[in-house]
């Protein structure tokens, strides 16, 4: 049960003098208008990147993983770095939708749709890497536990890589369902406003026959709660399991019990940064500044400074343990391969430190948190930093592990390795451009839900309530229908 009253001290979640129909008009405008020139340019760039990525992958599949610069010592490089990076980004959406839903955080309504879409696209991108990093990708179905004619031949349930398969596919499925079920009422709205037959038909199919009946709403609410309940542990579990890829191994720098919480915090950190990057553009381009307000940005920056600091503590803990354990192998990895600036990859560690730990501290200042340009810049910095984090974990641990005889030559990616990464940006933005054009980027129904409580123009109505004596207030709220 929601209060009908919201403190005046709280910032409005919707600015401007909005009515329900205005909300609909504002948010659906991009869907119903012709795409702008900017959209076409952006879409074209995204598709080009995607094509380059596809060609890079084609080469890798045809000629072998030798198209990349990995070697006998460094078995994973950019491929798994990018995988973990994208999975991390895919965490904010579900966190915003599910966890914040359960915690009744009204501010999620402005950003959840786009964040969830981002999650889904990010997980799609992430999935490409573990699939195409396989030497024989055409045998990828071997990772599925299906009854087969090879005797009792099953997958290896001990392998964290297999856990990844389950974790990622579950996460993707649940996130997709959650996102789609939230889209149903909005699709129905688009359908009802359709100006062509085709539009009506397509959005009609997409809306699954939604007619706004109480029964539909009731089920929709229940489903949302159930999916939120399902997703919440997934937010924690997915990156935990991804971190197991490293934590369960024997390699110094990977074999670390701190990884699960550290990875989850890092994932949320990077996820929120990515949401910021995207929404700051979307709210500007689509004129949705009233719905995705500076207050939202402020709140998300708070999450960023919190998780960034958690990640920072984790880095320091690792360093401390590297010394405290007195394990020479860990000591070498943490204190030489990483923390020593002049070691071959020292720059990447300090790049990570600067981007992830130092720079987000700027957000202790409210002024900075509410500065759109600073936020946008920082969101990019954080994502660079988080990419470095994964690179540091993977490459600096592997390239000089136990036997000095096997220490690797300097690893830098080939054009095709970079191409694969760039290609996933193409995939991501292609999807995002299509989403922004054809899907309501803000949950229309959910905005309406908070409009009369948290809308700027409705706030003055609470003046009368504020003037009430406490007893009356309590009585009124208790009988509120």
């Amino acid at each position, binding site marked *: 049960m929601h209060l009908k009253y919201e403190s005046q001290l709280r910032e409005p979640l919707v600015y401007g003098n909005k009515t329900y129909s205005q909300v609909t008009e504002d948010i659906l405008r991009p869907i119903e208008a012709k795409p702008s020139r900017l959209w076409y340019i952006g879409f074209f760039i995204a598709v080009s990147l995607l094509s380059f990525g596809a060609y890079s992958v084609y080469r890798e599949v045809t000629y072998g993983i030798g198209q990349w610069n990995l070697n006998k010592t460094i078995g994973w490089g950019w491929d798994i770095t990018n995988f973990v990076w994208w999975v991390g980004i895919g965490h904010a959406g579900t966190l915003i939708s599910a966890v914040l839903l359960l915690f009744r955080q009204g501010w999620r309504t402005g950003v959840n749709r786009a964040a969830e879409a981002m999650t889904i696209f990010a997980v799609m991108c992430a999935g490409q890497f573990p699939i195409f990093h396989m030497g024989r990708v055409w045998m990828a179905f071997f990772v599925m536990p299906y009854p087969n004619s090879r005797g009792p031949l099953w997958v290896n349930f001990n392998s964290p890589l297999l856990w990844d398969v389950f974790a990622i596919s579950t996460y993707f499925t649940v996130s997709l369902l959650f996102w789609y079920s939230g889209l149903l009422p909005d699709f129905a709205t688009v359908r009802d406003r359709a100006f062509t037959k085709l539009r009506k038909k397509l959005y009609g199919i997409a809306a699954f026959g939604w007619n706004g009946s109480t029964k539909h709403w009731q089920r929709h609410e229940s489903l949302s709660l159930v999916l939120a309940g399902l997703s919440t542990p997934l937010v924690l579990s997915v990156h935990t399991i991804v971190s197991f890829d490293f934590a369960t191994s024997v390699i110094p720098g990977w074999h670390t019990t701190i990884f699960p919480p550290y990875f989850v915090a890092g994932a949320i950190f990077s996820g929120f940064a990515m949401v910021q990057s995207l929404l700051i553009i979307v709210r500007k381009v689509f004129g949705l500044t009233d719905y995705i307000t500076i207050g939202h940005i402020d709140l998300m920056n708070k999450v960023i400074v919190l998780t960034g600091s958690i990640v920072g503590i984790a880095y320091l803990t690792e360093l401390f343990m590297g010394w405290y354990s007195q394990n020479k192998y860990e000591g070498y990895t943490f204190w030489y391969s990483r923390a020593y600036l002049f070691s*071959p990859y020292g720059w990447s560690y300090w790049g990570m430190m600067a981007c992830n730990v130092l720079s987000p501290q700027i957000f202790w200042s409210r002024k900075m948190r509410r500065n759109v340009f600073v936020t946008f810049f920082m969101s990019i910095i954080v994502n660079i930093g988080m990419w470095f984090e994964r690179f540091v974990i993977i490459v600096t641990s592997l390239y000089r592990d136990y036997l000095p005889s096997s220490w690797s030559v300097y690893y830098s990616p080939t054009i095709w390795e970079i191409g694969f990464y760039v290609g996933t940006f193409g995939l991501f933005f292609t999807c995002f451009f299509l989403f922004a054009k054809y899907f309501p980027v803000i949950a229309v129904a959910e905005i309406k839900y908070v409009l009369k409580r948290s809308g700027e123009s409705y706030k003055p109505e609470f003046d009368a309530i504020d003037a009430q004596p406490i007893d009356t207030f309590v009585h009124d709220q208790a009988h509120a229908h």
Partner: protein
Amino acid sequence: MEQNKNWQSFGELNKSEAYNKEVNNEFKEELPFVEDHSGFLQSKAPRRDFLKYLGFSTAAAAVAASCEMPIKKAIPFANKPEDIVPGIADYYATTYVQDGDVVSVIAKVRDGRPIKLEGNSLSPITGGGTSARVQASVLDLYDTARLRFPTIAGKEATFEAVDKAVAAELNGAAVIVTSTITSPSTKAVIAQFLAKHPGSKHVTYDAVSFSGMLLANEASYGKRVIPSYHFEKAKAIVSLSADFLGTWLSPVEFARQYATGKKINEKNPAMSKHIHFETVASLTGSNADEKYLCRPSEIGAIAVALLSAVKGGEIAGVDAKLKAGIEAAAKALTANKGAALVVAGSNDKDVQVIVNAINDAIGANGTTINFGATVNYRQGIDSDFAALVDDMNAGKVNAILFHGANPVYTWPQADKVKSGLAKVKTTISFNGKLDETAAVCKYVLPDHHFLESWGDAEPVTGHISFIQPTIAPLFKTRAFQDSLLLWSGDATEYTNYVKNFWSAKLGGENGWNKTLQEGVINPATPVVSGASINSSAVAAALIAVNASKPSTKIELALYQKVGIGAGQGASNPWLQELPDPVTRATWDNYIIVSPAMAKTLLNIDLNNGGQADAYEVQPPKKVVKLTVEGKSIELPVLIIPGTHPQTVGIAVGYGRAESLGKAVIGTGKNAFPLACLKNGTVNFSCSDVTLTPTGETYPVALTQTHFRYDTTQGNRTEVMKELTLAEFTKNPKVILEEREEEAKPFGGLEKFEAEATIYPVYERPGIKWGMNVDLNACNGCGACVVACNAENNVAIVGKPEVLRGHEMHWLRIDKYFSGDMENPNVVFQPLMCQHCDNAPCENVCPVAATNHSSEGLNQMTYNRCIGTRYCANNCPFKVRRFNWADYTGADSFPDNQRGEVNDVVLNMNDDLTRMVLNPDVTVRSRGVIEKCSFCVQRLQAAKLDAKKESRPMVDSDIKVACQQSCPTNAISFGNANDKHSAITMVREENELRSFHVLEQLHVLPNVTYLAKVRNQSEAEGEKAEAKKA
């Protein structure tokens, strides 16, 4: 009609049908969850549609998938040869002969193709040991660059045509130039030819000759011979930069002898002491107990000083460091009189005369040096050939025949050879490939490969080793001896000639057959005798040596690599890709400099972490121009500790003619022209060398970049354990205590297996394969690496791929330095899959492609592998290898090799070259991981054999490839659960020195190593420790 109190629409008021339907969905009272039971099967798409779609999609997929596949036909024998059973190998005793090198071998022949050479254990010389070059020689048989027919002036001809033409021209004296011939029958054939052509002569030409030693022995002992050496009898060995474990005279033999003195009986530890005077880091120097760095020009002075010292005289003419070395050497030699040996690598007659005098003084003559059995490995005298070159240039030579010798490439003044040859009317080459000399000869009559030949060899007087063909000649080739016989008017075929030659001596055909089966004849009782020395020769030599003052400028030492030799191995991809034991580099030669010189010359300080890292992690190395006596060469520089600070080294044998095959293209530069003739012998060192950095870089394909296990964060003693003999005698449990300390956090060694894990301990009944490597015996020669290549079809990847860390070797030999960076201790550690009982690779594979057998093998299922490389990441030993590209042509993707792998790799996939593949071992395709299998095909075969004979399998049934090839028997292998097996015995006998690499990880390896013990006095050990600290 009852009126509602309130109504919201006319529908409600009238209770219209539509309204009633709507209102059903707007429940006001309660929330009924109506279940709709109309299920899937009642849906609109009926079962038939489903089947229709299913059928269509299956058919479509089938059509799409049925692209045309190439059909390869296997044709069965129409008439099966009696001896060939498909799938069953035949073994023939034969002999590896290359120039003067002789190693008795057993050839494994599968379906008529020789595919592997194993050492012949009946030979007391090699005792079944081989070298990298012996192992690789089987690949030379299938070399696509072999000459396939005789040619006249480069045009294909028949042998008849050549015979006719040669007969017309060969009227008069001819000169036969051969590399050292050890074959008695061939010598007889040559004698016959020389007799037929009066005035003819036979000149023996060795690329890297022992003329200095031969002449010195003539001067000292009156005999132009090389005695046999007995390193196994020597308790003190002093080597004046003689690389006797790598390339000097007969390394397989010496390695075996040397290892006997190095293996330790733990109850009564004693070992030989080897003091080495090193110019440029070498394999032998790396194995020495004590090593002193000197310039090549100081070798003479050292010999003189050592002679004086062993006679109790003064040491003069050398600096303080060397003086200490000479004192130590003299002390060791005199303390072990009669069991001491000095060898010198110098090709200077005077130096060798002095060495003879030292050996005489320390009682080596007749004990460790045996003139009773002289060796025939090298017979060439440089001055003979020099005279011939002059004769040729003077137009005095009418006809010249080359066999084995390749002076156009190897003679320091190759231009003179070329210009001389231009003046010779009839030039004939019998070399099997179009080498530099054959290329300028008019007639080329390619000889067989030794695996196609009949023949014999007498490496040591009285020891005969036979050559029998294991395959019919692949090409139109003819034995060199056949040509000579024909041209001397003898119609006997050489095949019969050899047979007749020996049948007479062996008691008829039966004796011959039996001997051929065994492959060798050994003298009944070995004779050991000395020779009386002529002391006047010494005085003359002393004067000569004292007259030449050591240089103070930078010097150059040319050396041979273990794999490449004087260039014979250059066209063999297995040998090119074999990491050089000293530098761990492949596919190139380079300039070796010391860390001190690197600092002044290149401004690279290896003691500066950042600079060392930068040097190590970047394959492009700085190129330096080396100039000596007007000749210059530009090569990249490698910094190798253990090299004299004022001396640089370059390997010969590179930069060969492209006609020798794809493997030589782009690999290194020819350093032979830098050698010089001095006092009638070829001198492989030069003083007064100028080095100028060119500012360019050149990538060198190193397989190991870092050589110290002592890191800034601690000394990784779990990786490698080494100690001095003094430490070991003082406290034999020192290694055990170290291990105990490492296992202490996990309950100590005894409880380690159970306590260091949360999992239960499993019983491991039945067979449990185990391996042991004695680091004292291993000298790092690399024979096992090539043997593994041959046995397990390990792919060659070529230089560009090695540069990227893509080499495929299942077995590698790690090299570590410890102590002083200028003159470090060196230790070699062969590392293959450790077949861990608790293997970290196994539990991370998502598809269980790598798993554990009930016999303790960590096995790799190639066709299950999807190539995630997780196992390789999680292997602490980094022994897993990934097929980064289609190296073998086994991939199902067509046309994905060209442009991606280089020509050498493509050539390895040629149908001819592929004949060398072992049919018992899968050729791995792109995208899968592979690694050492403990030669599982051999284990299965041995078990089957035992089963067929209804007996339990015993250790002697099995020899894994690396173990078989090892000249020093450093590797033991067998069933560790069998109380009487060799592996159990070795482990029990060497309990104190055993260790597992990275034992503390609790991966429970099945390979044990025996710690390296160096015969250093405690003081020296402490010195090394102090330097380490």
